[in-house]
């Protein structure tokens, strides 16, 4: 025991001359780290990468996979809110069958929205965007034509959004789940388009000469959707 103690103190004595230089070196390490931390802090002030909602009310969707999930969550929120309104105040000229179908679509979109909410909260706690405030003043919910036109816009936009964002997903499971959702959106889109004009389910306004559906980049989708959302969305870092 005493031997060990002695050794320990001997080692301590032996180490002493080295001690100061190490300390000096570690001081520089700390100094460097502090400088780094300060830089981080400053960059945090410069842009709003780490804040979900900035003081001016912009909602930052975030980056990487979480950014893509938040992006999908934002679009599903918009769709769910729209169909909830369609269901609550159905257009007078909707047929009973159409009313029933739209209440089903409303359920699908609410389920998609809640799925993303659950997934983001579980996989990326604290990084979820808040509930968004829809602006539907341009839509006349009492008129079938107005509702169908908006539904077509939202469904086509949703399909193009998923198609364009898939390549940014790094987690294979997310790519599969996005695929599971986008095909249902495409089925909705085709259904709504056929209601507006039979046979327009895949017309050349959305399918190109290679037989491929549309794909849009996140910033372009957000630009197209922005007039329906009160909060300004920042999709510039989605998937990056």
């Amino acid at each position, binding site marked *: 025991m005493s031997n060990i103690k002695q050794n320990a103190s001997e080692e301590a004595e032996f180490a002493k001359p080295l001690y100061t230089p190490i300390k000096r070196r570690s001081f520089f390490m700390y100094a460097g780290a502090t400088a780094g931390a300060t830089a981080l802090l400053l960059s945090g002030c410069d842009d709003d990468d780490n804040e979900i909602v900035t003081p001016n009310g912009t909602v930052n969707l975030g980056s990487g996979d979480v950014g893509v999930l938040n992006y999908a969550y934002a679009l599903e929120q918009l769709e769910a809110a729209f169909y909830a309104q369609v269901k609550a105040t159905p257009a007078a000229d909707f047929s009973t069958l159409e009313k029933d179908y739209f209440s089903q679509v409303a359920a699908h979109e609410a*389920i998609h929205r809640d799925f993303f909410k659950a997934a983001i909260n579980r996989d990326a706690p604290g990084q979820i965007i808040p509930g968004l405030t829809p602006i539907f003043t341009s839509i006349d919910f009492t008129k079938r034509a107005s509702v169908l036109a908006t539904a077509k816009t939202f469904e086509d936009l949703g399909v193009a959004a998923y198609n364009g964002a898939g390549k940014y997903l790094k987690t294979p499971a997310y790519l599969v789940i996005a695929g599971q959702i986008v095909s249902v959106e495409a089925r909705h889109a085709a*259904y709504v388009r056929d209601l507006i004009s039979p046979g327009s*389910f895949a017309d050349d306004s959305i399918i190109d000469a290679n037989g*491929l559906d549309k794909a849009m980049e996140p910033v372009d989708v957000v630009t197209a959707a922005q007039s329906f959302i009160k909060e300004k969305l920042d999709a510039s870092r989605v998937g990056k």
Partner: protein
Amino acid sequence: MDFLNLLARLADLDSTTAAPQLAAPRRAALGRLGQAGTALLPGLLLSALSQPATAGTLDTRTRLDVLVLVRQLAALGNELHSRALGLVAGYPALPLTATEKAGIQVIQQQEAQRVTLFSQLITDGGATLPTTPRYDFTGSKNSAQTALYPDIQTNPATYLLVAQVVKDVAVRVYKSQVDFVRADAYLTETLLRSHSAEARHASHLRTLRRQRGVAVKSWVSPDDAPVPATSPAIAKVYEGESGFIQTYNASDASGQGGALVSVPFDSTLPINVATPPLSAEAILRKVAEAFDEPADAIVATNVAALFTY
């Protein structure tokens, strides 16, 4: 790409008895792609290695495999619809309404466009196209066996049923194939765009059937009138589609690990979409509709095999 992953993947390959005669043509095709030295090459070779290992499966497909598969499905659809429209010699047009005909023409033309696109992607990569198969949509293999759909060339209802099945299975299988091309952003996006176009077609074909009085929605639903299981391959198309429980991997950013987590739609999530509120069972039926399920490539190739000989 981490080394352990690669090891796990190799171990997977070792521990199974893959038919060597199947592996050889694939290697030969890869070799041809290598000689071509096109832009397809680096990603193609990498893609075989850069996918995360999936324990217990041998479905390790190259980008070429995926392209050949989606081309096969598009070609099959093109032939099915072309015959229904009377575009193929020896097959008179089905008595479809003008509206039905217009929609099916759209589908047929987009199938043909995608055959062209996928063919070009395959040949640009230096691989050769598979020979064109012989089709028999009655399922009799040119009268070698009892027909599954004897009146498909005369009865629109039978044709539309088969058309729906072929589309629904394509929509399922695309979902599992995208993962095999993830290393290539162009191909990932191309497959996704083709996938959603397929889903639009499936929706329209279902709408046409509904207009003819069949109890079927534009999306896959537990409420759909069941598709008669004329063969095990057909039964597989809708197997597992009524998944009431959606799960996701709680994976980290690298896509590794993570247990399957089921989303508690029936209990804790506030799905307030009906007044009075839906029962838990009713909500779960809606969950089944809200997600299309993925399926392995073999589910589609088995369906295609029914109609080729």
